[in-house]
């Protein structure tokens, strides 16, 4: 019974396949809709679904980034050497290296902070499968 759900939400769900959302995930959402989940639940799942598709896509694209950066740096260095003395280019390069390195370090630290995990679980007597 899909009728009580807003048309926009259902269109977004149908559109999810084309933006690279996982087939089994869309199937799971449809299965739960047929069991009568609320509209709020559906919108929450849609946000998660599109968010996951977007991050997966970004992860795929960033694999090319190191090569692109290396190529761009080589091009900049060659261009700089052709128009300025090599000592000036080296000084500029070191300055850039320090700034970019610091920014990269902060970026890495920030990404690690997002990934931090806190684990607090009930005691063994409260866990049903205590005999694992």
């Amino acid at each position, binding site marked *: 019974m899909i009728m009580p759900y807003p048309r926009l939400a259902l269109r977004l769900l149908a559109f999810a396949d084309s933006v690279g959302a996982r*087939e089994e*995930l869309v199937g*799971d959402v*449809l*299965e739960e809709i047929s069991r009568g989940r609320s509209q709020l639940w559906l919108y929450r*799942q849609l*946000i*998660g679904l599109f*968010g996951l598709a977007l991050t997966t896509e970004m992860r795929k694209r960033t694999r090319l980034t190191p090569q692109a950066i290396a190529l761009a740096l080589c091009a900049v260095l060659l261009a700089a050497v052709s128009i300025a003395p090599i000592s000036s280019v080296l000084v500029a390069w070191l300055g850039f290296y320090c700034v970019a390195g610091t920014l990269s370090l902060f970026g890495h630290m920030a990404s690690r902070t997002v990934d931090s995990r806190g684990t607090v679980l009930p005691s063994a007597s409260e866990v049903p*499968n205590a005999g694992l």
Partner: protein
Amino acid sequence: MSRESLGHFELLVLLALLREEDEAYGVPIARAIEESTGKPVVLASVYNTLERLEEKGLVRSAVGLPTAARGGRAKRYFSMTTTGLREVRAAKKALTTLWRGVPVHEG
């Protein structure tokens, strides 16, 4: 136990997966977590976690048959590997040991 320990949600997903046994796919895993924690679970986060666990070699998956209730889309069934079971046991042991040392506050 591997160098990287299991996160809270990862452990919840693995335990839900163990409980569901042969019927472990996104929906029952998410429902089991919702029932145990009392909080709504986003299916995408379950799949994201399962994907990460699969990359770590703790979980394996197989595609099932498509059904009409799912708009012709197939289910993906998950099961735990031996390494996964070992990690869950190690996490339980570590948590139990830690909880034993925690003073009980009542009232």
